[in-house]
C-alpha cells in the first residue's frame, strides 16, 4: 500500500481495535449460544434477532454499574490492572499475518513477541489479584502465575520445532513457508517427514494455549466453586468487563497463533484462493473447539495441572524437539 506510514498505522490501529472489540463482544454471544446448544437450551434470544444485540446490552449494563473500589485495596493498582490486562492481547494482534497483504506490522521474532506479551498478561492477573487484597483473589493469582509459568515452557519448546523447520521466528515467514495444500502445512507437512511428529507438537501447543488463556478445563484461576470468581472477585462494572474482554482477546490471539504456526495461516486446504477468509475460518474452528471443550469437561485440580505440564508436556516436547531436530538435520 502506498499510503503515508502514519495513516497506515492509524488505519490498522482502528481496524485491530474493532476486530478485537467485536470479537470480545461477539465471542461472548457465540459462547453463550454454543453452550446453550450443547446443553439443549436456546441461549440469549430476547435482545435483537437471535439475541444478537445481547453483547451490546451486557456492555451497557456493565458500563452503567458502579466501579466499586473496596476498602483496603491498593486503589491505583486495582484500577490499573484491568486496563493493562487488555493491552497484551491487542498488541499481539498487530503482528498476526491475516493474509499475504493484511498484517499491521511485520517483524522478525514476532512469534517471540507474542509470548513476551502473554507473560505481561499474566502479570496483570497477578496485579489485579494482589491489589484486591482478597484471599480468594490472591490464591487465584498465585495459581495463575504458576500455571502460566508451567505452560509457557512446553509451548515455547514446540515453537522451537517450528522454528527449526521453517528457519524463522517471523510469523509471516512461517505462514509463507506453508502455502499450498494441506500437506504443506506444518501439521501435515510431508516434506522431511514432519507429519510423523508434528501432531504431537500441535496437541501440546493446543492444550497449552487453552491453559495459557485460563480456559476450562484449566480455568483454575477462576474456579468458581472454589475461589468464587478468583482474581476478579472484587471487580465490578467495566473492571470486570475488561478482564472478560482480555480473556476473549487472548483466546483469539491463541487461535491466530495456532492457525499460523500449524495450520498454514491463510492457505487453503486444497490450494484454492488463499486469503484472509481461510485464516478467519481456521481461527473460528479453533475457537469453537475451545468452547466445546469448556462445556464438556469438568475442571481439573491445580496440582494435577502442574504435574501434567512438568511431568508430561515438558518431557514430551523435549523429546519431540530432539526428533524434529534429527529429522531436519538428517533428511
Amino acid at each position, binding site marked *: 500500500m502506498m499510503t503515508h506510514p502514519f495513516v497506515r498505522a492509524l488505519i490498522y490501529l482502528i481496524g485491530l481495535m474493532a476486530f478485537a472489540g467485536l470479537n470480545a463482544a461477539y465471542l461472548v454471544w457465540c459462547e453463550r449460544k454454543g*453452550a446453550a446448544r*450443547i*446443553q*439443549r*437450551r436456546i441461549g440469549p434470544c430476547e435482545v435483537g434477532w437471535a439475541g444478537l444485540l445481547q453483547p451490546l446490552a451486557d456492555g451497557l449494563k456493565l458500563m452503567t454499574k458502579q466501579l466499586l473500589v473496596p476498602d483496603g485495596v491498593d486503589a491505583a493498582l486495582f484500577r490499573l490492572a484491568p486496563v493493562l490486562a487488555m493491552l497484551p492481547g491487542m498488541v499481539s494482534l498487530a503482528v498476526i499475518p491475516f493474509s499475504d497483504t493484511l498484517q499491521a506490522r511485520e517483524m522478525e521474532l514476532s512469534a517471540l513477541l507474542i509470548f513476551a506479551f502473554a507473560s505481561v498478561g499474566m502479570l496483570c492477573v497477578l496485579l489485579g489479584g494482589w491489589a484486591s487484597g482478597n*484471599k*480468594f483473589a490472591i*490464591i487465584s493469582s498465585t495459581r495463575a502465575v504458576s500455571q502460566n509459568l508451567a505452560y509457557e515452557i512446553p509451548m515455547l519448546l514446540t515453537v522451537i520445532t517450528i522454528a527449526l523447520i521453517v528457519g524463522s521466528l517471523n510469523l509471516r515467514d512461517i505462514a509463507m513457508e506453508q502455502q499450498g495444500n494441506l500437506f504443506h502445512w506444518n501439521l501435515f507437512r510431508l516434506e522431511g517427514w514432519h507429519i510423523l511428529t508434528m501432531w504431537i507438537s500441535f496437541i501440546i501447543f493446543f492444550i497449552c494455549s487453552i491453559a495459557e488463556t485460563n480456559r*476450562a*478445563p484449566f*480455568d*483454575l484461576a477462576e*474456579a*468458581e*466453586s*472454589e475461589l*468464587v470468581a478468583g482474581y476478579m472477585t472484587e471487580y465490578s462494572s467495566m473492571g470486570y468487563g475488561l478482564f472478560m474482554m482480555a480473556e476473549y482477546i487472548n483466546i483469539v490471539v491463541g487461535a491466530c497463533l495456532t492457525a499460523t504456526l500449524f495450520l498454514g495461516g491463510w492457505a487453503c486446504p486444497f490450494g484454492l484462493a488463499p486469503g484472509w477468509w481461510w485464516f478467519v475460518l481456521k481461527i473460528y474452528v479453533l475457537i469453537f473447539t475451545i468452547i466445546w471443550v469448556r*462445556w*464438556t*469437561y*469438568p*475442571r*481439573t*485440580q*491445580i*496440582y*494435577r495441572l502442574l504435574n501434567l505440564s512438568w511431568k508430561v508436556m515438558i518431557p514430551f516436547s523435549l523429546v519431540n524437539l530432539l526428533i524434529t531436530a534429527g529429522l531436519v538435520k538428517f533428511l
Partner: protein
Amino acid sequence: MNLPRPQHYEETFVLNLGPQHPATHGVLRIKVTMDGEYVVKAEPVLGYIHRMHEKIAEQGNFAQFMPYTARMDYLHALAFNHGYCLVVERAAGIEVPERAEYIRVITVELNRIASHLLWWAAFLLDLGGFTPLLYAFDDREQILDLLERITGSRLTYCYFRFGGVCTDVDDEFISGTRAFITRLRKRLPTMYHSLVTGNIILIKRIKDIGIISREQCRLYGASGPVARGSGIDFDVRKHEPYSVYPELDFDIPVYPDGDSMARYMVRMDEIEQSLRIIEQALDKLPDGPIIAAKVPKNLKPEAGAFYAAVETARGSLGHRLICDGSKNPYRLKLRSPTFCNLSLYAEVAEGMMIADALAFLGSLDLVIPEIDR
C-alpha cells in the same frame, strides 16, 4: 496414586467459605485454616438457617406440623413426610391401607431419584462441569411433573396424611411413570455414565479423594450413601423394614472404597434400584382406599415415647416422638442424616488441597436446612 501431602505447616491463614459461597450449596459456613492451598483445619459452622422446627412441632397439633417436614430436606421432602407419618401412626395406632403404602413407596422413590439427580448435577457443578446440570434437570423435570400431577406441588410436598395419602394416583400418572422408567433406563448408560462417569478428569478428581473409613462412619454415625460408600451395608429400608419395602425386591449398592467415587457410584446405582422398586410397586399396586377410615382430625395419642426411622436420599432419618396425651406433641426430636455426615468432614478434610476438600464436601450431599432445622 499419591496425593500431595503437606510436611509441616508454616504460615497459616483463615479462609471463610460461606455462608455465601458457591460450593456450600446454601448457608453453610466452613472456617478453613489454610497453609497455601492445604487445609490445616476445616471447621463447619452451623446455624445460619435454623428455624426451630422441633419447637414449632410442639406448638401446633399433630397435623399442623406436616407441611413443615418438607421444608427441612426440600430435595427428598416426601421421605420426611413419610418419617413423620410413620411415627405419628405408630403413636396413634393407625393402620394404613395397602394401596396407600404402595403409593407412598412409589412417590418416595420417585422423589429419591429426583434428589440423586439433583445431587449429581450439583456435584458436577462443584467440579466445574456445567453441562451435566442441564441433562439431569431434564430428567428431574419429568419426575416433578409426575409428582405435581398427584401432589399439587413440585418441591415441598405435603402429600402424606396420617393413615394414607391425600389424593389417589390416576392412569396418566401410572403410564407417565412407566414411560419415565424406560426413558431414564435408556439415558443412564449414555447421558450419565459414558459422558460423565467415564471421563478421565472426573475419575482423577474423585477417585481416592476424601476417603472415609468404616470406623469413622461408625464413630460419627454416618448413614446413607456415605456409609454405603465406605462398605457399611446398612439401609433402613432393608434392615429396619417399614411400609411395603419387604415385599419388593431390590438391592443395596455397597462399595468398599470409601472415596468420593464410591459415594458417587452408590448414588448412581441407587437410581437404578429405585427404578426397580417403582416398577414392581406399580405392578403390585392393589385397589382399595387410599386413606384409613376414621382418623380423627385432632389426634390424641396416649402418653409414651415412639420412634420411627426411614431411609432418605441422604441416610437414615429418625423421628422420636414423646406424647403426653394432649393434642400437641410433647417433644419431637429428629435425627437427620446430613448432620452426622457433615460432622466427619473436619476430620477427613484435614491435609487436603482446597480443591479436593470442596469436591469431598460436594460428595457428602449436604442439604443445609436439614442440618440446621
